[in-house]
């Protein structure tokens, strides 16, 4: 019989970034006994790295802005693959959530008349991102953290969930371990919220932190839930490219929002050569118009430097391939020649700091070198838009690990707003569900024993291959074969290699103690990484078109008739194998469809 700490709650929330914190705050406010479980210390989650801002149609800078415009931008940015209801709720509720952050102590940058200032970002028709310089994520997580600690939420820090428990069809809790000691915990919960973020650590070049091993996606999948759009991965156009050790670290889109431009080795502003038909009507085609747009949005169209991220990332990729890249394999991002030193240091303090310290580059005097980096996964756990319920009873999901909101490509700034809008809804949904349960769940010992045996198995194989090489090989494979440009032969090869990695991971060995042993932790994280990698590789092969963040060399361009109307769906089959199917997109009501007819 294994020994473990037992904890009983109404609601457990797994993950303590913006979505998890907001979910826990809401569940607790609705009277649910709530636990918040996170792999890191509180306040360190990946949300902290968000830079540019939080998108909300407050209309403080451009009164013409409203939720309909934001909704339309979001759907078009997502190449219409978004769940329309999620995009609608998001656009409608984001302003309330931003104002709520201010009520809880956040200090956003101000307009001249003392309101929340908003900045330009890619794909947004108006300056829409509330922000704090270029450290908006830190402000968001700290505000929520400081609000949460006074709300009677129990926080389990440096505690990793390995598997969800089930009682019949319903998720009934989770098995976890303390990273510090390796000791086990069993949570019995009436409902469970997943808010674990993304899958970036499956890729060699990423802006994501170590925690992004796809835990929530995998936990849900193993528990029988459906994943959608797993092929839709966002490569942010501007990550650092040099020095090698910082390759992939994010350079905020705010640099372009505040006037920075992309140039190739011929000093050409190459984005003018990459304006797609889909956005031609709303994009400036001359340098004069693009530069005038920053000041006058009514009479000018948006600079192509601020096309949605998928478009810009592909353009950079093409320039580098054509031999017009920068010395270290990126392109130049120049704000030094366009804005004053004082302006740059005030608007982009952490970018200044980051380049100065890590790359010996002074961004007020020199251009930056940037290139695409895996940044975000649009795909995720299928949820009901209004309640954040997954396809498995008792299980909810919000934030990056949930799918549908962003379609095939996410607009910058829509992630932070997603976290608080749907974090709140998930906390609400989970609390109401828990209140409706008549009996408290009780963990099934046989399930617990089986899970724990799996967790500890790597210690039995001392001397076998360790986890680090497997992770590195997986990251190289995903980067090279399931990256920014994809093709069938490579995707099939990726699947074969992933099968090989699964074999190696099943025999992975670790040695030493259970106390804060990173090798053991990685050995367990590999299970989730491999599951989400396989899901992305399989889904990418099924969608035979190019749409948003999913680009097929062998199927260039979108195929609206065949693929524009469906999601790719992943679930675990009865035989334990991964199944890939499709299902029709929910149909948008006529009054919203009208917004796209202008």
């Amino acid at each position, binding site marked *: 019989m294994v020994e473990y700490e037992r904890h009983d709650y109404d609601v457990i929330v797994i993950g303590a970034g913006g979505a998890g914190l907001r979910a826990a705050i809401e569940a607790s406010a609705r009277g649910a006994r709530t636990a918040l479980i996170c792999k*890191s*210390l*509180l*306040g*360190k989650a*990946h949300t*902290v*790295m968000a830079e540019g801002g939080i998108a909300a149609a407050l209309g403080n800078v451009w009164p013409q802005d409203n939720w309909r415009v934001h909704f339309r931008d979001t759907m078009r940015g997502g190449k219409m693959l978004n769940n329309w209801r999620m995009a609608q709720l998001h656009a409608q509720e984001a302003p309330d959530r931003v*104002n709520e952050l*201010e*009520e*809880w*102590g956040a*200090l956003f*940058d*101000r307009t001249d*008349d*003392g*309101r929340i200032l908003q900045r330009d970002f890619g794909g947004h028709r108006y300056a829409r991102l509330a922000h*704090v*310089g270029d*450290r908006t*994520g*830190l*402000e968001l997580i*700290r505000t929520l953290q*400081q*609000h949460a*600690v*006074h709300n009677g939420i129990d926080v389990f*820090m440096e505690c990793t969930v390995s598997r969800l428990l089930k009682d019949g069809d319903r998720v009934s809790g989770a098995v976890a371990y303390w990273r*510090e000691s390796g000791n086990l915990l069993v949570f019995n919960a009436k409902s469970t919220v997943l808010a674990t973020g993304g899958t970036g650590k499956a890729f060699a070049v990423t802006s994501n*932190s*170590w*925690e992004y091993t796809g835990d929530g996606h995998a936990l849900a999948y193993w528990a029988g839930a459906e994943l959608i759009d797993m092929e839709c991965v966002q490569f942010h156009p501007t990550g650092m490219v040099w*020095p*090698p*050790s*910082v390759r992939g*670290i*994010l350079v905020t889109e705010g640099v372009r929002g505040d006037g920075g431009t992309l140039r190739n080795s011929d000093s050409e502003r190459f984005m003018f050569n990459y304006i797609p038909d889909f956005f031609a009507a709303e994009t400036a085609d001359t340098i004069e118009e693009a530069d005038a747009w920053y000041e006058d949005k009514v009479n000018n169209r948006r600079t192509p430097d601020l096309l949605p991220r998928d478009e810009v990332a592909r353009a950079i990729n093409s320039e580098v391939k054509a031999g017009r890249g920068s010395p270290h394999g990126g392109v130049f991002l120049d704000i030094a020649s366009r804005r004053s030193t004082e302006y740059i240091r005030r608007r982009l303090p*952490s970018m200044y*700091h*980051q380049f100065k*310290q*890590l*790359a010996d580059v002074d961004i007020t005097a020199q251009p930056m070198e940037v290139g695409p980096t895996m940044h975000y996964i649009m795909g995720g756990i299928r949820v009901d838009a209004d309640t954040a319920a997954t396809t498995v009873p008792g299980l909810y999901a919000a934030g990056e690990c949930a799918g549908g909101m962003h379609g095939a490509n996410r607009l910058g700034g829509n992630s932070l707003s997603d976290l608080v809008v749907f974090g709140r809804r998930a906390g609400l949904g989970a609390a109401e569900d828990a209140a409706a349960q008549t009996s408290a769940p009780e963990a099934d010992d046989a399930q617990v024993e089986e899970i724990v045996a799996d967790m500890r198995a790597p210690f039995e194989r001392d001397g076998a291959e*360790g*986890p*680090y*090489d497997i992770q590195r090989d997986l990251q190289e494979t995903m980067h090279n074969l399931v990256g920014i440009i994809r093709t069938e032969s490579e995707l099939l090869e990726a699947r074969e290699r992933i099968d090989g990695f699964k074999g190696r991971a099943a025999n992975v060995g*670790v*040695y*030493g103690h259970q*106390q*804060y*042993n*990173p*090798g*053991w932790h990685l050995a367990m994280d590999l299970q989730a990484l491999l599951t989400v990698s396989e899901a992305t590789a399989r889904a990418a092969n099924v969608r035979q078109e190019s749409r948003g963040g999913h680009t097929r060399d062998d199927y260039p361009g979108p195929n609206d008739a065949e693929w524009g109307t469906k999601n790719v769906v992943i679930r675990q089959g009865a035989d334990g194998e991964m199944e890939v199917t499709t299902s029709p997109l929910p149909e948008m009501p006529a009054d919203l469809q009208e917004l796209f007819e202008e």
Partner: protein
Amino acid sequence: MSETANMRVFRGDAESGDWQDYSVEMEEGQVVLDVIHRIQATQAPDLAVRWNCKAGKCGSCSAEINGEPRLMCMTRMNLFEPGEQITVAPMKTWPLIRDLVTDVSFNYEVAKTIPAFKPRAPEADGTYRMMQEDIERGQEFRKCIECFLCQNVCHVIRDHPENKPEFAGPRFFVRLAELEMHPLDTEDRLELARKDAGVGYCNITKCCTEVCPEEIHITDNAIIPLKERVADRYFDPIRWLGSKIFGR
């Protein structure tokens, strides 16, 4: 071009521990955390280290490098002479868990004791107005990434752990000052600053300011103004007399 780094890393737990030497291949532009990761991947898979963003934004990878409190992810290897031995030790002020990981729970406990932000009523339209110049100081304080290096280096608790129950430390003086200067906040925390948080213990040696990776002027902008406000309220003889005579 690869060079070899000579690393001396503390390995051990709460009971015992010792320095361990590692010779590690490194690449151009690397930081100390890269080298620690390489040790993990090639020589010591169980080497415990806490980290998250590797971009100076989360404040997880605090350590003492050649005796200096720093973030491992923002300390470039080219800061040191080629071939120089580089020591990496856990933060001294916190109880050791293992290797480079310490128990920083003290800080999370102190955070709970600071009363929440309590805003005044909003404007008629339900939102607030604040001027940029009135929030700039608060924004400086909110740059804090909670790396706890200021706490680690503060000799009030570093050299005298017995002070921990009555001293909140620089990070929380920054938090108190931030709330105190917040244009919307209505809560009074000066009594807390004076009594339970023990701002009076600080004798302004500025060690905290020197190690802050966010370059927050902890002493000048947070602690001294906080001390002044406490002094004005509790130790100003005219105010004291006034409060006795007029009862306020």
